[in-house]
């Protein structure tokens, strides 16, 4: 299952992973060349980690020429935040944190009845984009994640309210990306659009990219809710009917602790995870994200309001 190193020019045809990497580097360079103030959404999640890795390769031997932005829900896994800070420190990046907790504390946002904070990220994100006057926002979003994302462009225009209009998207022709926009508008850019979950993991293996530990199997106190294993933590305590047990689990996605579930797994290494993902029969969002189960079009609705 070991993928060859993406940049090795063994023959006159690139393997699919090297082709995807080259496409992503091309897109990142295009946006940096054409726009004034890009920023990269960086949460410490695997897709944003791969995005950052691609950006580093795109500008080598120079530094990554833009800051990173994290929308912190206040319910993030502590080990992921520690990883985020370590990476930022090592690479000498500028980190901007937009804090959902601050918005809740001063009353600009109200805590939801279900305790989920993912939908609350939109306002702090849009404010941070406006404040930083960012005109290109890189994200690690992939089209295989979700049905609405399957229809999104690599370079996707957002209006002055940050809204996505799925019925009025620009045609994306050849590899001629068009990020032009009017003042107040910006573009969201998804260089990993054509990657699948498996591609991301194969790339992590080929490039030997470190990730937060919770992507790999570990023992954790969890309880069952909505068909998912939820970790016992500050923001997620079991209801009387829910039984806490220690299970061997890992996370396929890392987001807000209140709505991100773990999956039972013995995959302790990248190779194990690749084997698991290749055989798995449930999508990563279906397995681990309560917020995408709200309705058939939950993601589309949030994107229209300015979500990632």
């Amino acid at each position: 299952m070991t993928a060859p190193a993406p940049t090795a020019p063994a023959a006159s045809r690139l393997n699919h992973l090297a082709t995807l990497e080259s496409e992503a580097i091309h897109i990142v360079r295009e946006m940096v060349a054409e726009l004034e103030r890009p920023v990269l959404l960086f949460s410490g999640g695997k897709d944003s980690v791969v995005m950052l890795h691609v950006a580093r390769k795109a500008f080598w031997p120079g530094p990554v020429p833009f800051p990173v932005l994290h929308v912190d829900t206040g319910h993030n896994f502590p080990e992921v935040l520690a990883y985020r800070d370590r990476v930022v420190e090592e690479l000498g990046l500028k980190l901007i944190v937009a804090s959902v907790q601050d918005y809740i504390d001063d009353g600009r946002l109200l805590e939801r009845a279900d305790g989920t904070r993912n939908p609350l990220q939109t306002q702090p994100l849009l404010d941070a984009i406006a404040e930083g006057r960012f005109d290109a926002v890189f994200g690690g979003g992939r089209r295989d994640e979700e049905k609405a994302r399957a229809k999104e462009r690599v370079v996707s225009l957002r209006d002055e309210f940050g809204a996505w209009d799925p019925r009025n998207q620009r045609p994306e022709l050849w590899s001629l990306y068009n990020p032009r926009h009017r003042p107040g508008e910006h573009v969201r850019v998804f260089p990993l659009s054509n990657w699948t979950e498996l591609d991301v993991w194969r790339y992590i293996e080929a490039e030997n990219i470190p990730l937060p530990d919770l992507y790999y199997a570990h023992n954790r106190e969890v309880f069952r809710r909505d068909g998912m294993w939820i970790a016992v933590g500050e923001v997620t305590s079991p209801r009387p009917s829910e039984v806490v047990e220690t299970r061997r689990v890992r996370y396929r996605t890392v987001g807000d602790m209140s709505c991100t579930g773990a999956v039972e797994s013995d995959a302790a290494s990248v190779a194990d995870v690749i084997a698991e993902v290749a055989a798995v029969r449930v999508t990563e969002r279906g397995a681990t994200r309560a917020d995408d189960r709200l309705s058939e079009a939950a993601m589309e609705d949030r994107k229209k309001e300015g979500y990632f």
Partner: protein
Amino acid sequence: MSTLLRLATAGSVDDGKSTLVGRLLYDSKSVLADQLDAVRRVSEDKGLGHVDLALLTDGLRAEREQGITIDVAYRYFATPARTFILADCPGHVQYTRNTVTGSSTADVLVLLVDIRYGVSEQTRRHLSVGRLLRVPHVIVAVNKIDLVDYAEEPYAAVEAEVRRIADSLGVPDVWTIPVSALVGDNIVDRSARTPWYTGPSLLELLETLEPEDAVADSPFRFPVQLTIRPQGAAAPEFRDYRGYAGRIATGRVRVGDEVTALPSGRVTTVAGIDTAAGTLDEAFAPMSVTLRLADDLDIGRGELLASGSVPEASADLDGTVAWLGERPLRQGARVLVKHGTRTVQAVVRGVHGRLDLDTLAPTAADELALNDIGRVQLRLAAPIAAEDYASSRTNGSFLLIDPQTGASLAAGMVRASAEPELDADLLDWVI
């Protein structure tokens, strides 16, 4: 080694295209249990007697409400030998725009024909678009053979008609396959119910067709994206580093090769080929690399590094465009032309005819409306080093952009010869 193949599917919902795409995803085990559960649930809610695989691909709220596919959707599936990127182009609304978009990057165009009705007007149009965009391979899936009791005669009739049209258009490589997307005949495995058909199944064919080869026999073309010059921001050994970053569009380059920068015309040699993973002696399309040059040329973004038969830079651009703007294109319009990494102002000197996709013939026209395909001549504010689309899909393509709104207005294909001749042979006309 798994290679990447990009395919586009076109056809209307009525032809069973979404079902075919759903079938490919399902049979290649790219549909996962929770996705299938959702589709099964919605199918039951709608009172359908079967699991509607089309629901796998119609993602937007409006699409599900209206039962139609609105926009190009991208799907991913893989076999041990190949990884596939599928651009699913809907047929109802904006079909030209969608098919042009999907075809622009496709190695293979898959068209759907309902065997009961044969080749439709839309099939002809899609074949024209595939030919115009120079998709290397076209597969016509003749669908719903289960509804004609797997009879050979209606299939043979469709096949003959497809070949006749493809020949008249000069489509280089056309395949036809009798399939039932609903039941699965000849999609993954060859069907026992069509013993008279001896060709490959759809997936077998997709696994064996060769993607476009942008390396062999193609001259080196490298649009410079940006200059990497880190100065004080880099480690001490790279303080004086100066490299030109880009993705090789076609061909290959070796250290020591002589290259010409266009449109400036300066000539130098390649001193080094760098990537973050190390330096290379040789690189080829579509690799993203950074080139160091022997001479300190004053070049940057928008310059094209080329070797071999170097294209001539010109401020006159003659091309065939698929017009995607809401307002008609007329002589005198001011637009931006994006070619490679260069964007220049331009004025439309003239509109010289339109391709009638119904009759497949060129007709006189002096303006282009939404979804029209026609010939235009542009005068550019600065020269570009474009070449014929027929010789390079990358270096022969361009975008027209609205300078005020930034909207993408047209997909353009360069035609190097000068004056258009409407009475000329069609093949000549469509590049």
